[in-house]
């Protein structure tokens, strides 16, 4: 994994764990807070319930204490005395009871009105009702009345249901037990809700005087107690009876409304407790405490249920949670950004280090890390740069060493290869190679040399080159040897003869070079010895054959000349006699005409005389003429071989003008157009050149195409040191297969259709041999021919 990833992963893990820890801390703290709030709420509920119990108890005791005032007791005692004075208290009470009950609801009976307005009633009303209303806004005693020991009402702040109460259970209980308490209920006579309390009143001697009964309204009491719970605006108070009837509730309620149907009641187990529940999808804290009463007040098992909105209770925690959340999110985001930046920073540094290391690894020792800062990366870069500097120095030394080694290896390799090549060349060379000391000792010789000179290697190495050099060639060789040692020449070649071991001489071509040492002193000679014995023999044979050929040619020319010359005499004779014979035939024929010669003989002889003999004579004359022409040609040819050309610079323009003038009649007769361009001069024999170009023009004339007007053009150019002339015609041309043969002697393109003996071009060729010239032809059959003649150039250029 990349470092950047590790850093990012580390941060993410840390942040995730931090977030998880924060989540757990929130969860745990919320639980703790809920527990603490629950406990506090429970204490609140208990305290409130105790306060209610105490308040009710105090109200009871307040009534009791109030009622036990002496004047009240005296008032009751007087009533008892008056009742005692009656004949029948029972009858009186029954009568009053009937009257009491018979009174209409809105109109008290006279007795009732009297009782409600007596001193005790007024004081009770004033001190226990109006006083509290005036001072507290409410009174806890919506109704009070007092009975004497007979159970008859003797004072009342409001209506009572009956006049005589002695039959009532509460009265009996109060009389017997001193106090009677009834659970909360609606009391119709006073149109009030409350606890009915009945208290026994005794005189100072403990004698039963009567009972005071009060309705204790718990609403204001709970309301007052509720204020103490007002620390939370969402606090709700429910005071329930043991069986789940609503006694009091913060929000609108119906008195003694049944609350037992709710799920909440089932959770109110035990004396106290707290829990978190949902009511109409709102989470609320619930704490409850059961009334335990106080002293005479039993509490009736009432349940005080205090509920508060969890959101409000936990508002501070929610604020804290929100802050933690926001801070956590910001921290996580900041952490991520920081991790990203850090990872990028570290990664950039690492990347720079990596890239730098890679570049250095590739040999860029001039590269230096450029990481600013004094952190570890900066220090590492500095250390790295120092290391690279040292490495650069070491590498430079190493490179030098390696280069030197490589150079040496290369040199050694080259040397080995050179040696190998030399050895191979030396050993397998087709020529003899030897290393020879300045004194002439054979230092090293190859097999070919041994073969040439016929010595075994070991024996040859014991000799000097002087030992086996032919005596006639030794001086020359030694002179060259001296010149080389003296530095006058650097190399020399010499054809000389060695004396083989078997004593036979052998021709060799010697090429010698001198190798000097570092000081310039001669180290050894490298001598390449080529066996030229065969060549020498061939040359000697060639020379012999050339001489023989020249002699033969000379003899042949002599023969031709002689033959031609000697044959001309008989030929002249033949020509002469044939002419004589012709004359004779003509004479004989004339004679024949005048004589009577038998017809038979005439008929046999006349064809002979008129046709056959003249025809034969004509053939003889033609043959003689041809023979003469041939002999003339041969004579010219032979003279060319015998005569030495006189070389001079020839003005070819003049030469050609003369030739054209000579041939003017023939040209005009044939209707041939001839054009001579400006021609360069050449070096040659004027007569022979005349013969040469005359032959070429004559040849062109002979082979003109009779189907079109003949045109002949003579041109020439200077080509370096040569002058090249061209004789071009638009004649019949020469077939490709004949182009190589036309310069042969007696060769004729059309032996029957043209004149000549086939000597013209042969003579041309022979002239050019003498003049160091060349001739070649370019021809296309049916279009014409171009004869090119190359001759040594003269000093003059083309004629203007």
């Amino acid at each position, binding site marked *: *994994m*990349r470092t*950047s*990833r590790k850093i*990012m*992963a580390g941060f*993410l*893990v840390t942040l*995730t764990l931090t*977030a*998880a820890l924060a*989540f757990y801390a*929130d969860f745990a703290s919320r639980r703790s807070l809920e527990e603490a709030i629950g406990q506090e709420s429970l204490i609140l509920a208990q305290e409130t319930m105790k306060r209610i119990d105490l308040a009710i108890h105090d109200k009871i005791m307040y009534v009791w204490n109030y009622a036990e005032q002496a004047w009240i007791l005296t008032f009751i005692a007087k009533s008892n005395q008056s009742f005692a004075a009656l004949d029948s208290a029972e009858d009186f009470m029954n009568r009053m009871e009937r009257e009491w009950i018979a009174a209409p609801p809105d109109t008290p009976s006279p007795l009732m009105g009297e009782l409600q307005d007596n001193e005790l009633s007024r004081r009770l009303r*004033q001190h226990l009702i*109006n*006083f509290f*209303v*005036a*001072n*507290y*806004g*409410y009174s806890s005693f919506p109704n009070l009345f007092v009975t004497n020991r007979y159970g008859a009402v003797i004072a009342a702040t409001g209506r009572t249901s009956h006049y005589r109460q002695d039959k009532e259970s509460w009265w009996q209980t109060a009389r017997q037990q001193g106090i009677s308490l009834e659970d909360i209920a609606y009391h119709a006579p006073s149109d009030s809700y409350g606890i009915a309390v009945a208290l026994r009143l005794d005189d100072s001697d403990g004698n039963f005087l009567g009972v005071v009964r009060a309705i204790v309204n718990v*609403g*204001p009491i709970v*309301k*007052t107690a*509720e*204020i103490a719970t*007002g620390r939370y*605006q*969402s606090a709700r108070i429910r005071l329930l009876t043991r069986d789940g009837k609503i006694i009091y*509730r*913060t*929000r*609108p*309620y*119906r*008195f003694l409304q049944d609350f037992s149907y709710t799920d909440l009641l089932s959770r109110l187990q035990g004396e106290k407790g707290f829990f978190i529940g949902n009511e*109409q*999808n*709102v989470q609320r804290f619930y704490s409850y405490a059961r009334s335990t009463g106080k002293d005479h007040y039993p509490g009736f098992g009432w349940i005080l249920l205090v509920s508060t*909105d969890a*959101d*409000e209770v936990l508002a501070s925690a*929610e604020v804290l*949670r*929100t802050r*933690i*959340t926001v801070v*956590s*999110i910001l921290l*996580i985001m900041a952490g991520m950004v920081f991790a*990203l930046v850090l*990872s*990028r920073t570290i*990664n*950039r540094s690492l*990347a*720079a280090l*990596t890239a730098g290391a890679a570049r250095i690894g590739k040999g860029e020792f001039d590269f230096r890390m450029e990481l600013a800062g004094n952190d570890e990366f900066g220090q590492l870069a500095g250390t790295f740069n120092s290391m690279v500097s040292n490495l650069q120095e070491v590498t430079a030394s190493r490179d030098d060493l390696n280069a030197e080694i490589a150079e040496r290896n290369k040199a050694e390799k080259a040397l080995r290869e050179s040696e190998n090549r030399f050895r191979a060349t030396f050993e397998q060379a087709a020529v003899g190679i030897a290393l020879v000391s300045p004194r002439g000792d054979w230092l090293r010789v190859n097999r070919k040399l041994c073969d040439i000179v016929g010595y075994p290697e070991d024996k040859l190495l014991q000799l000097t080159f002087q030992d086996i050099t032919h005596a006639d060639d030794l001086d020359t060789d030694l002179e060259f040897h001296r010149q080389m040692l003296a530095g006058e020449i650097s190399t020399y070649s010499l054809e000389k003869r060695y004396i083989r071991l078997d004593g036979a001489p052998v021709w060799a071509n010697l090429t010698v070079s001198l190798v000097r040492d570092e000081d310039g002193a001669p180290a050894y000679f490298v001598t390449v010895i080529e066996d030229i014995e065969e060549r020498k023999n061939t040359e000697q044979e060639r020379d012999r054959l050339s001489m023989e050929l020249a002699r033969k040619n000379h003899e042949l020319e002599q023969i031709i000349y002689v033959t031609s010359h000697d044959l001309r005499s008989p030929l002249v004779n033949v020509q002469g006699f044939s002419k004589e014979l012709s004359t004779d035939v003509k004479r004989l024929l004339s004679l024949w005409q005048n004589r009577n010669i038998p017809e038979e003989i005439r008929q046999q002889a006349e064809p002979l005389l008129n046709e056959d003999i003249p025809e034969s004579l004509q053939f003889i004359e033609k043959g003689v003429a041809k023979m003469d022409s041939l002999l003339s040609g041969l004579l010219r040819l032979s003279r060319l071989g015998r005569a030495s050309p006189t070389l001079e610079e020839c003005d070819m323009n003049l030469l050609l003008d003369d030739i054209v003038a000579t041939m003017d009649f023939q040209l005009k007769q044939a209707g041939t157009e001839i054009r001579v361009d400006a021609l360069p001069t050449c070096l040659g024999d004027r007569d022979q050149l005349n013969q040469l170009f005359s032959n070429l023009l004559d040849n062109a004339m002979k082979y003109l195409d009779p189907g079109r007007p003949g045109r002949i053009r003579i041109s020439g150019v200077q080509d370096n040191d040569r002058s090249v002339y061209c004789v071009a015609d638009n004649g019949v041309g020469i077939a490709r297969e004949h182009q190589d043969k036309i310069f042969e002697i007696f060769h004729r393109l059309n032996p029957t259709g043209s004149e000549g003996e086939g000597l013209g071009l042969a003579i041309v060729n022979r002239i050019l041999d003498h003049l160091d010239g060349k001739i070649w032809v370019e021809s296309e059959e049916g279009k014409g021919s171009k004869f090119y003649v190359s001759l040594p150039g003269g000093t003059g250029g083309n004629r203007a």
Partner: protein
Amino acid sequence: MRYDKNGIFLHSSCSALLKTLFFLALMLVGTISCRWLPGGEKKQPVRIGAILSLSGTGSHLVDVRDAMVMAAEEVNAQGGIDNRKIELIVEDSKSSPVEAEKIFLRLEEQEKPPLLYVSTLSSVGMALAPLAARHQVVLMGLVTSAPQFAEQGKWVFRDYTNSQEETRVAQRILDTLKVRQLGIVHLDDPYGNSVAKLLGQSFAATGGSVTAVAFAYDVTDLTPQIETVRTMQAVYVVGLVGHIRLAIRQLRQAGYTGHLIAASGAANPQITEMAEAEGVFVGIPLVYNEDFLFARQFKNNYQARFGKPFSHQAANGYDCVRMIAGLLEGNEVSRQNLQFLLSHGFLYSGVQGDYELKAGSQEIMMPLYPARIDHGRLRLSQ
């Protein structure tokens, strides 16, 4: 693995592990955010159409609006009614029944008409009562004393004291003062006439003599009425606050030295702060009891919030909103159900004291207690 031109690791090519961790971190953050950040289900608000007398003859009842706003804010701050916010739609009836009717009908034509209506002034309430019955929506009458108001059918409820309670506390004062001759100066409207009638009957039942004289709504001089009753042992004045102010002032100017007793409207600071009101007896709700901690808390908050003395009319509006909120809490929020809940009656301890709505009754009874104006303050009398 990819790097940028600077050799920086490109995070788009994070490994699967890195991506997973990143994703988990985001999920965790999201989970925590969802869990911790405030939010929750949003429900439709409980809209209360408050057609109040903010101007005109009932302009002094502007306190009702202020207290209702304060109560609504408190309830909303506590999470509303089961997460439903209370939305007060306050409209000025200009103390005009005609204007109030127009407002009512306009609000009813809205896409989301109010759950219930609250009005002030008897005349306005009486005008709106038939409309409430027709549209089957609860109408709460605050500071609405007209006896007939509670007789407008099951959709109309009075949330205030009534003429019976005024009579009861007045009779109690008269009893205490042992008055035998009583002059009654009353507004000639249903409310004033009702109180005058009931008190006259009650007082007469105790054997006393009664002389009642009425005045018009727009009266500016009560001299004739005062001349009629100035010889009486006690004079009881019932009317609007302005009427009571005028009566007290003119009685004092006329040199009347007998007991002055006024209806509960005289508990308003506009009267208690009058020098001529010194010694006037008045039936007051419990909110004026300075020893009543709950009420004192409200008073302090109100005065701190609005910078003016509170009035029991304001407390009436405050209790009304709190009472409705408490009544609807945990119950279905609908017009029908609200009427159903009201029809079953309840007890409610408000800043005005213990309200009681008996089952089947249309009177949410605000109890009154006898008091006396003493140096600008109301003191409950024994």
